[in-house]
């Protein structure tokens, strides 16, 4: 079995190189036979990599511990689900999985576009097969998951109990769908440049291939945060760790790209810009994949230091040099047909939004690689942590949020002064009301007040769009409210789906601000019957209980909760001791309400359980981050779900985060 898996990947490598060359050659020389051969090669490579993945899966599921990878990441008693997910649990397997997704997407893209874009496809094949060749090369020469041991261990090392979590199992494939998915728009952008067909066709062909990776990254990052929140037991969900940043940067750049595309569609501007954005997004996806396994930057998350680092860096450098060199050579083809008319216009706001997102990416990037930079420049490693990222990114995100609201008040091309000020009234008033409400409730923190004020402003500006447009329909079409609202979505799903994504983002922002600015934190060693008060909650320690389950011992403490003097139930922070592992697992007990999370860890206890020590957090509004994540998914699906009906272009109003109906 290991031999099958490995030889298929070797053949896939050879064929990828062959296909990449003949696809390019065929396109240049107009050789239909070569183009067709490259197309076939794309499918064959996909089939071969699939075989290889199946071989690895078969080994994992059969617990073939003779294979080093299987022995390292699974054990006999591991639930089948986690044997399956071990496919992407380790470095070598995850690279193979990356490659498989790439070839899968290549096959889908081929089916979708061969007839529609015959001029672009050979180049798309050439680019995607080149990327595939790189990853296949890494798997074959540097990270082979099929290496066998010269003995067969009785059992494998198993999977860290912390990672035995459904959400965490889904986190890597979602991130990879994002990373790999952005290869498609990148390949089309390069194809547009190579074929000199630099109109907006490459953008239209890849619309869904921007939205799907983007939403996969969004959800992947959210799930990762939720896992960290539930399992890592420090009361937070995001630590600006290099590996977290690695997934955040392509998301930021992808978000910028998602929006700048709309300007090219609407106003035939920003051609060069869009190509640069997609190149940078793809480069950041590669950088993210690299960072996770490089060991270059001290991260608490990283895979083991692995020998692939120089190759990844070299590949990223080649991608950037080649892409930007090509942009420079095609500069004359990329001149825009239109120019900006006014600073006070929606296009201008989109550009400002893009610049802010690039700014946040740049800030995050600087902070992430700072230790490396300082080591090279001054021989001393200087690192920055959470305070840096918060200090720099919080104001930028604040500006971004305000801009998200302002954009809706501004018109395309230019804005009439009276309509601008009329649009500003409700959002400004609501921002003011939010601030007054919070201040009168004793919350005076300036960061919290301004943050919530900004969110209030843009939230109302966005909801205002729904109200205004629904009213307009009610009047014009004489429809009742609910029919009018539904018809908004029916007619312009991309636009209103996009607004829903924005509302989701505001909810998440509220959760982030609330939990960062107003978090309460305490610890207490309590005798039985003794109480501790934190915020609105009073906790009374009842007793300690311990028992054994087949695979683990459990110690749990019971505390009674009073909220503002009212008994509201009990909470049971727990600690597991898995028999297979020396490592205890502290399960935070979390009581979630819409207002706040009560988050308790069992930190220690005396032998009889007469006293126990707890770490207690009150995290305001955290649940809105998860609600926002769900709404973001709903909004994106609403916006992007393909429909067979083609609507007249006049109806298609492109909107952030959305996908045009009917394409």
């Amino acid at each position: 079995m290991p031999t099958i898996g490995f030889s298929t990947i070797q053949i896939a490598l050879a064929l990828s190189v062959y296909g990449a060359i003949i696809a390019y050659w065929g396109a240049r020389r107009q050789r239909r036979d070569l183009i067709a051969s490259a197309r076939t090669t794309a499918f064959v490579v996909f089939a071969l990599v699939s075989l290889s993945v199946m071989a690895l899966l078969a080994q994992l599921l059969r617990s073939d511990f003779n294979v080093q990878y299987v022995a390292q990441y699974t054990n006999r008693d591991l639930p089948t689900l986690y044997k399956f997910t071990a496919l992407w649990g380790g470095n070598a397997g995850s690279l193979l999985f990356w490659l498989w997704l790439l070839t899968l997407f290549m096959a889908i893209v081929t089916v979708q576009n061969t007839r529609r874009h015959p001029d672009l496809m050979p180049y798309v094949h050439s680019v995607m097969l080149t990327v595939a060749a790189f990853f296949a090369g890494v798997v074959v020469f540097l990270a082979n998951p099929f290496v066998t041991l010269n003995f067969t261990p009785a059992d494998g090392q198993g999977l860290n109990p912390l990672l035995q979590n459904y959400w965490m199992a889904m986190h890597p494939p979602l991130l990879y769908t994002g990373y790999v998915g952005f290869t498609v728009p990148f390949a089309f952008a390069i194809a547009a440049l190579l074929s000199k067909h630099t109109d907006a066709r490459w953008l239209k062909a890849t619309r869904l291939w921007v939205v799907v990776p983007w939403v996969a990254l969004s959800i992947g990052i959210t799930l990762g945060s939720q896992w960290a929140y539930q399992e890592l037991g420090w009361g937070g969900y995001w630590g600006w760790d290099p590996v977290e940043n690695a997934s955040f940067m392509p998301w930021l750049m992808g978000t910028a790209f998602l929006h700048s595309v709309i300007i090219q569609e609407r106003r035939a501007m920003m051609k060069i810009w869009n190509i640069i954005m997609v190149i940078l997004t793809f480069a950041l996806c590669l950088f993210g994949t690299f960072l996770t396994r490089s060991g270059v930057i001290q991260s608490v998350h990283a895979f083991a230091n692995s020998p692939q680092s120089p190759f990844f860096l070299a590949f990223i450098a080649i991608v950037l040099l080649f892409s930007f060199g090509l942009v420079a050579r095609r500069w004359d083809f990329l001149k825009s047909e239109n120019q900006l008319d006014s600073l006070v216009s929606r296009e201008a706001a989109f550009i400002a939004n893009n610049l802010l997102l690039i700014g946040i990416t740049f800030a995050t990037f600087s902070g992430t690689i700072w230790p490396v930079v300082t080591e090279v420049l001054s021989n001393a490693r200087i690192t920055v942590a959470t305070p840096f990222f918060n200090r720099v990114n919080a104001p930028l995100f604040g500006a971004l949020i305000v801009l998200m609201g302002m954009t809706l008040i501004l018109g395309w091309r230019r804005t009439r002064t009276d309509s601008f000020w009329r649009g500003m009234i409700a959002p400004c008033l609501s921002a003011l009301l939010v601030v007054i409400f919070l201040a009168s409730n004793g919350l005076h923190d300036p960061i919290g007040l301004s943050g919530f004020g900004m969110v209030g402003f843009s939230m109302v500006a966005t909801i205002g769009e729904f109200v205004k447009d629904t009213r307009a329909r009610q009047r014009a079409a004489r429809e009742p409210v609910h029919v009018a609202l539904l018809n908004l979505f029916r007619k312009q799903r991309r636009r209103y789906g996009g607004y829903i994504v924005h509302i989701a983002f505001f909810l998440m922002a509220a959760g982030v601000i609330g939990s960062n600015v107003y978090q309460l934190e305490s610890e207490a060693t309590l005798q039985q019957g003794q109480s501790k008060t934190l915020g609105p909650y009073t906790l009374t320690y009842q007793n300690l209980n311990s028992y054994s389950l087949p695979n683990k011992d459990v110690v749990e403490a019971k505390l009674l909760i009073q909220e503002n003097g009212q008994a509201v139930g009990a909470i049971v922070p727990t600690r597991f001791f898995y028999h297979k592992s020396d490592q205890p697992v502290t399960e935070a007990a979390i009581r979630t309400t819409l207002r706040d999370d009560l988050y308790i860890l069992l930190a220690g206890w005396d032998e009889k359980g007469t006293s126990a020590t707890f770490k207690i957090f009150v995290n305001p509004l955290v649940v809105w981050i998860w609600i926002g994540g769900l709404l973001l998914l709903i909004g994106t699906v609403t916006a992007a779900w393909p429909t067979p009906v083609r609507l007249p272009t006049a109806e298609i109003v492109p909107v952030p985060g959305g996908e045009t109906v009917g394409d």
Partner: protein
Amino acid sequence: MTTAALDQPHAGGINKKFLIGGFIILAAVGLLVMNGLSTASVYYLTVSEARTQLRAGGSDIVRINGVADLSTVKYDAQNLNLAFDVVEGGNRLPVVFHGVVPDTFNQSESVVVEGTLNSKGVFEARTLLVKCPSRYEPVVAPSS
């Protein structure tokens, strides 16, 4: 590069305004980053560097990377006080940490502590990060 798309071929008076607007945003970002780097930087030292470069009782916050010597670990679970030596290349430095100890602490080969060296020459960590080099296993534990 960031000004590329703004710099349209028919650069007119209005596009100059855009260049200025874009420049202001980028300058603001640059200033924020520079300010952040100068105020939130922390030196990253090895144990031997810490022993030679850190002044006892000083207020410099640094990060130290090393291996926790598990034979020296003392943990008072009632008061959440942890003490251990961090070692690297024959050098060792006593560390104290107040807070919940990360689950993977006992298994880790590598730890990162952030804090200051007190007047007794003991490193007072306000953050304890545990790194698991063998696997993809994230663990973070900043304390109060």
